[in-house]
């Protein structure tokens, strides 16, 4: 058989492409359910980590359902969008990806830990090589950070990728987002440097651009929730003054 003529070559290429396409489509179809599940569980683990709970993949769903009491969307002015409540994985608060679409509203998760309420908000930004994202758990006063969690798509292992590890995320605990009734965010600075007028944490040495990305992400993504957080802060102040 002459394998060099044009007809054979074209036929060969076409059949190969069709077989490969069917094969890959089949693989994707048969695995996609498991993959979606993994992605959902991963997201639950991230939210739980921001609440200082390390759950492995098996128990994440159960823990999540136990701790997250409510989830809903808010408008940029801080008001809740009616009818958007729901903690299930199919509800808008869970499915909305703020990196892609903020027009429908901003997700807020309400959690209850040892009787006190925490608000978890998602963040999204850019690192050195690709997207970075995370969750910030904030106390009832709308200012004190209870915990944080960061993830990345492809930051350099050992450098920028360190943002995903406990030593970095734990630096955020107890920091204040609001100073004197104004939203200031938390700065990520080079180790040893300081910033006036706002709380700050040390960045990753050698991961400067990723650290800057985290800094920008905190400012921008958490900044979107500014009005929501300021409202919480004001309400909290009134409450404590009233006592």
């Amino acid at each position: 058989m002459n394998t060099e003529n044009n007809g054979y070559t074209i036929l060969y290429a076409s059949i190969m492409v069709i077989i490969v396409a069917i094969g890959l489509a089949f693989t994707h179809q048969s695995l996609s359910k498991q993959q979606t599940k993994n992605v959902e569980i991963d997201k639950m683990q991230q939210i739980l980590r921001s609440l200082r709970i390390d759950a492995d993949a098996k128990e994440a769903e159960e823990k999540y359902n136990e701790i997250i009491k409510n989830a809903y969307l808010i408008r940029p002015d801080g008001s809740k969008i009616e009818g958007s409540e729901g903690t299930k994985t199919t509800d808008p608060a869970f499915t909305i990806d703020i990196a892609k679409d903020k027009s429908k509203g901003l997700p807020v998760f309400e959690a209850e830990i040892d009787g006190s309420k925490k608000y978890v908000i998602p963040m999204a930004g850019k690192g050195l090589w690709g997207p970075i994202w995370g969750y910030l758990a904030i106390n009832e006063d709308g200012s004190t950070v209870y915990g944080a969690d960061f993830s990345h798509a492809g930051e350099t292992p050992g450098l920028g990728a360190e943002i995903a590890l406990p030593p970095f995320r734990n630096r955020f605990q107890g920091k204040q987002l609001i100073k004197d009734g104004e939203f200031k965010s938390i700065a990520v600075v080079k180790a040893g440097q300081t910033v006036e007028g706002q709380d700050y944490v040390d960045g990753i040495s050698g991961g400067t651009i990723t650290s800057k990305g985290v800094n920008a992400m905190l400012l921008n993504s958490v900044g979107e929730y500014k009005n929501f957080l300021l409202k919480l802060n004001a309400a909290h102040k009134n409450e404590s003054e009233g006592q």
Partner: protein
Amino acid sequence: MALSSKTKAVLLGPLNKNNPILVQVLGICSSLAVTSKLEPAIVMAIAVTIVTAFGNVIISLLRKTIPNRIRIIVQLVVVASLVTIVSEILKAYAYDVNKQLSVFVGLIVTNCILMGRLEAFALGNGPWASFLDGIGNGLGYGWILVVLGFFRELLGSGTLMGYKVIPQSFYDAGYLNNGLMILPPMALLLIACLIWIHRAKNKDLQETTN
């Protein structure tokens, strides 16, 4: 099953005298990228071994039917589909590892070792020999990755597989992690050192000087 001396050479040659990284200097890019920690290095080694082995087998089975003019395209399609399948399986059953390796699984496609083996070996040899050649080259690439990953993680982060191995008392006494170890240039220098040692041990690999 006893292996004949030829198949033995096919399987074991790439581990030493014909190592893809140390002797042929292929696949350097990924060995710089994924070796700053030990765990991704190991998973990468396994993934590349699987893809090389099965890519070799498929191309070897098809070798008499492939039109010569589009053989590179055919090889690329086979490698790309295998890599996609590996990546899909990792996503479904080893989600955490897949997250760590991120883009590097997809980048196996561009690993020169794969195309090199398909072109140089699988197109001219039977499936069984090609399979062994794939395994041999995958492992030959893999053990260098593991050695690099071991030293870079140990000296750069003081950990192995994420566990602390350098005791706190060392740090208290003034020991510091070497940040350069984590950066890609140091991986290149380490590979150079490995090649140096390897050549010093194997005199027949050294070029004769006039």
